[in-house]
């Protein structure tokens, strides 16, 4: 609000103080875990284990990252995840944008019917098992292509947001002018519409890339071959299994358990950072775009 109240009353002052204090606390609860994990990843694991590190790193060591470098599965997973992003995102973008443009055209008679077909899938579907059986029949289990052609490869919500962007940002006059010049729909879409849409391209690219990078559930059910595992599956073994599933450790040699626990403890902070780096690096650059993007969708969703 841009209006400055000339006589801020006491109640407003108190409100402001409480508000700023509360939001600052919120800020701390969001930043603190990040700082702690960074510090813990480069501190002496034994000190972290004893709870002596709570803000700044102590007795700095790169042992954790050294162990991560030697951990082959992590790098296979990293490579796989990157591949899934680089092949999967263009595929998803293609489906989303080609679907969104016709829907943005008010003179397109089939648009309502097609819209119904799309939105229905948001509320009802076959469910886990029938989808799994379909994927199996298509031979997509344990297949590289499976991580690209997933049922979730195209998000209907994303189509709607993109359509709304086209509706509000591509003037109909442009289309009329192009039609007079004898430009066909596809040329118009590729040559005029797409070059006018960098914000929505950036937003959708980010959404899909993050989605692919973070994919877990579908990888869990459709992949059993370790060579194809994305990073998240490997990560899960490191950050959760040993600590939280006492059953997994039953019947193992105590010295092996101790060694495993020690390795897990020294690398779990580092792998969390390594797994989040690509996403967090792109985030500040794209932030202004995605807020715009989601607002466009929110106005007329």
């Amino acid at each position, binding site marked *: *609000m841009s*209006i400055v*109240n000339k006589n801020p009353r006491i109640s407003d002052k108190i*409100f402001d103080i409480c*508000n700023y204090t*509360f*939001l600052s606390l*919120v*800020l701390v609860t*969001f*930043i603190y*875990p990040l700082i702690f*994990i960074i510090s813990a990843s480069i501190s002496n694991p034994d000190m*972290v*284990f004893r709870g002596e590190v*709570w803000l700044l790193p102590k007795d700095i060591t790169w042992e954790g990252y050294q162990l991560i470098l030697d951990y082959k599965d992590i790098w296979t997973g990293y490579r796989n995840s990157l591949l899934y992003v680089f092949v999967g995102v263009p595929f998803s973008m*293609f489906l989303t944008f*080609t*679907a969104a*443009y*016709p829907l943005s055209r008010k003179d*397109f*008679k*089939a648009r*309502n*019917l*097609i*819209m119904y077909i799309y939105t229905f*899938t948001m*509320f009802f579907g*076959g*469910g*886990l*098992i*029938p*989808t799994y*059986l*379909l994927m199996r029949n298509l031979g997509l289990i344990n297949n590289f292509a499976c991580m690209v052609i997933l*049922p979730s*490869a*195209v998000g209907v919500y994303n*189509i709607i947001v993109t359509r709304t962007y086209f509706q509000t940002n591509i003037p109909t006059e442009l289309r009329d002018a192009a039609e007079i010049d004898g430009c066909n*729909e*596809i040329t118009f879409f590729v040559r005029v519409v797409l070059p006018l849409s960098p914000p929505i391209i950036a937003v959708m690219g980010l959404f899909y890339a993050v989605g692919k990078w*973070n994919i*877990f559930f579908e990888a869990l059910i459709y992949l059993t071959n370790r060579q194809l595992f994305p990073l*998240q599956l490997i*990560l*899960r073994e490191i*950050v*959760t299994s040993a600590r*939280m*599933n006492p059953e997994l450790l039953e019947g193992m040699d105590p010295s092996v358990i101790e060694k495993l626990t020690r390795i897990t403890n020294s690398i779990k902070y580092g792998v*969390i950072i390594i*797994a989040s780096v690509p996403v967090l690096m792109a*985030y500040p650059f794209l932030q202004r775009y995605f*807020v715009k993007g*989601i607002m466009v969708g*929110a*106005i007329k969703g």
Partner: protein
Amino acid sequence: MAKSAIVQGSPIKKSEWKKDFKRHKMLYLLSLPTLIFLIIFHYIPIYGIQLAFKDFFAMRGIWGSPWIGFENFERFFRSYYFWDLMKNTLGINIYELLVSFPAPIFLAILLNEVTKSKFKKSVQMVTYAPHFISTVVLVGIISIFMSQETGLINVLIKSLGFEPIPFLTSARWFKTIFVFSGIWQSVGWGSIIYMATLTGIDPQTVEAAIVDGATKLQRIWHISIPGIMPTATILLILKVGRIMGVGFEKVFLLQNPLNQSSSDVISTFVYRVGLVGADYSFAVSVGLFNSVINCIMLVAVNAISRRVSETSLW
């Protein structure tokens, strides 16, 4: 959502469609890939729902397996875990409805009152970030902070002279951890839509209120809250329409034998019975039961909302 009226059979309508098809051939062509994709991956599996009423034999396929009526459903309703699953699934959702649902509204209203734009921007930037973190990483962070021996929270509890709490391995704490970590991850992102609605409020209304001497709290109560009600109602309808759905990933990752009595929900059950146990038909019937309840809830809440507040999805 727009309404379409497609009447088939009348010759005038038919020729209109023909004309449209001729005129917009390229638009039909552009729509084709996604239509085919969604029909294959989202409509064809619906055919598999019949498994809920069948005894599935892999050799005979979905179509060839024999019908058994409602046997799977009866088995599910009579089983000892049925009430546990219902209790947990509904429990988590109601907990979320009461605690997580209002959180972004609260944050947006508070942020809207912040006049220092730098501070506002940093709060926004920082609170949006966890939305992009994967569930696995989130659960990793939870287990780092909450673990019984080394988690910082328990280190703090111990230093105050209390007994450490086994957060991750106790049934009592599961839902609280689930819900509050969810708030941490999504409150910022969820607030964007409310922020957008708040910026859409006519500044003249606010000015008039200031001239009339309304305090900030009064402005929040009489302008901001009524202003975001329609948006909140729509989101509430959608949320209630998923009252039986709990995201699989986080439950699955936080689940262990020690907290299972409180953490087992329908989605994890379907996964365990269906995919791990390969009892396909039974899992399909449980999943179908789940989505039917969701659909009923969505329609019902939408109807109630249309009556009460004139805001509805359709």
